[in-house]
């Protein structure tokens, strides 16, 4: 019997459904910090159920660490459901607003780049363009890479939100089973049995 073996650190995508109470974000973030869990991004917003908010948390860690994240999250009263959808077919998106320096001689080239990445221009001034881009993180990264040379004046990214493909939901799939690797309240059966 040995300590939890140091398995590989990977990025995990967690969907967390929480009761929409004051301070719930504080509780979640405080818990992650206290337990030294490494959050890459966290987004919060309303879900399809009134009174229930949905958090998407991108967290870096080994599988067993992320399982511990789930168990600790379940100890918060407001947390209703934690699902690790890392290995699920899912749609993951983030939104970026980018204000890029644009003079008359560079404007056409920037608009061309925006078109390639499907970014929409929302505002313009003599010296700048404001555009919105949605997509996976790699796409946003690539767009920013193309724009960097022109001078990015201001940038905001929302962090990732995600949804599993197909009819199933973060609550249950059509058969009542949970989708994704649900981090169960009760861990029984998830651990190999003594031989």
């Amino acid at each position, binding site marked *: 019997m040995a300590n939890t073996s140091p398995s590989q650190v990977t990025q995990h995508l967690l969907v967390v459904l929480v009761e929409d109470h004051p301070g719930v974000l504080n509780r979640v973030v405080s818990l992650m910090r*206290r337990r030294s869990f490494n959050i890459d991004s966290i987004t919060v917003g309303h879900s399809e159920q009134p009174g229930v908010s949905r958090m998407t948390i991108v967290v870096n860690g080994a599988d067993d660490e992320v*399982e511990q994240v789930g168990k600790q999250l379940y100890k918060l009263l407001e947390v209703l459901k934690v699902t690790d959808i890392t290995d699920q077919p899912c749609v993951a998106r983030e939104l970026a607003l980018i204000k890029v320096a644009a003079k008359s001689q560079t404007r056409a080239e920037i608009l061309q780049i925006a078109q390639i990445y499907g970014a929409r221009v929302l505002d313009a001034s003599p010296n700048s363009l404001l555009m919105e881009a949605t997509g996976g993180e790699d796409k946003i990264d690539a767009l920013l890479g193309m724009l960097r040379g022109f001078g990015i004046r201001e940038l905001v990214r929302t962090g990732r939100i995600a949804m599993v493909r197909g009819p199933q939901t973060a609550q249950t799939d059509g058969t009542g089973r949970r989708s994704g690797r649900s981090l169960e309240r009760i861990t029984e*059966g998830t651990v190999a049995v003594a031989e």
Partner: protein
Amino acid sequence: MAVAATPRRAPSPPPAAGRAATAHPAEGQVLSGSQLTCAALEAEGVSTVFGYPGGAVIPLYDALPGSSLHHVLVRFEQWAVLAADGYARATGEVGVCMATSGPGATNLVTGLANALLDSVPLVAITGQVPQPMIGRDAFQEVDITGITLPVTKHNYLVQRAEDIAPTIKEAFYLARSGRPGPVLVDIPKNVFLARAPFHYPETVARRGYQPSHIPNQRQVRLAAEAINRAERPLIMAGHGIMLAGATDLFREFVERSGIPVIFTLLGLGAFPESHPLSLGMMGMHGHREANAALERCDLLVNIGARFDDRATGRIDGFAPNAKVVHVDIDPAEIGKNVVTDVPVVGDAGEALRLLIPEVTPRRHEEWVAWIDTQRNRALHAALEDRPQTPEPYAIIRAIAEATDGQAIVTTDVGQHQMWSAQHFGYDHPDRWISSGGLGTMGYGLPAAIGAKIGRPDLEVWAVVGDGGFQMSLNELATAAQEGLDLNVAVINNGYLGMVRQWQDLFHAKNYSEVAISGPDFVKLAEAYGVTGIRVRRDDEILPAIERARSIPGPVVVEFVVEPEANVYPIVPPGASNSEAMHDRWVDEASV
């Protein structure tokens, strides 16, 4: 010594004499927030609260005399919460404390952390500045719900008077259910003053809180199979057995399976130490045979303990040959520190109830005989020597002898705590009350106050060091004011002994800031209007203890001991339990 395990829940103590039990308010009766608070506490069956008044809770204290609650006025809020902690551990009921906003509330933080780490059911009620002042840095304003987020099981800031009673209902439910813990309820002053109808809900329903009480039958069967197959099984008994009130079931399980038992610090009392299958405490200051059995066992059955690092030592050297069965009500404890082969998530009592019929009755004679060869007989023989200066372990043994092992022992933290854990011999549950996880110095006296109020039928001894006692000795005034018949044994070595011991053993005897002077403890006791006794010689130990027992009210007995006595065995920091250091009395033949 009697080895009968007593039921955890003592009958609730009657309200203090002369205190008329007031009738509960009727549903719908309009009351002030303060009255609602008292009514909710009464509805929970609370008889005693520990607290300290202040500006924001003046309205609450205005309502107290009209309630049936007995308020114990402490001398420092930190000791209010730890007295409530001692009360909870002694009775199995939820301990209750109250404090004002600002410094009153922040003084509770240590005690809340103490209760969280040791899974003690507590409800703390704090006053807050009036709602319009919140966020304006008002006088005595602190964000206590923010501050106590990581040291409570849950906390609340009550916004409306009509929410007070349902919130307190939920707070008590949370504190005592699942894995018990502290819950804080913060109530603004104007909410105490507002009026609302009394409504006390029958039940609590929170979607996000469903403790796993009953374990999965399949996992229980797998645990039983592992137990029935094992050649050298060992049970690790934790606090959870007592929290579940399952000491009788545990004894039945141990005697049926024939498996020897080691204890975590807080597990002491889960099973009689005088029983032949009892090996005593494990871990950093564990008995030699307990740690030797850990090293050699092929199956470790942990019931109600959380694999604390003081119990496990270096984790990769912990029980290196064993498969692990872990019974815990908190799923987050499974696999947190130690890889578990068979997790059983549920209440220890429910798990044992299901496990007992599945376990084959056995006797592990060869295995138990091998463990017996690991006892350090040289040490045991040396402990019988009685030099002229009082030896700390001799004091602990004398208290056990004088009280026939029936007393409640509370401690501070350090050497005296480990001597008390090693040498008292706990045969009954809930008699050993010590700060395990947090290691809170000063705990001993306030915990003894709480324990004595909760269990007036039992003799109570606070065993403290001269360091820790100087943190909380002001509570002698509380004990005197309450007229509590409790005794304080001060093990005075003139040092912060455990730190000095580490400096001695691991820091080249560099005694940095550990020599500590103190008052004349006999005169101090007299100044508080209580009796003080000083013991300087071994032959005075037992007479002094008997004298203290015969005097009603608080008694302080100061034992002047050898300044540089060390606690042995000791596992050096970062080492495995098998690498314990022993005193000069180590039995070389059995190493």
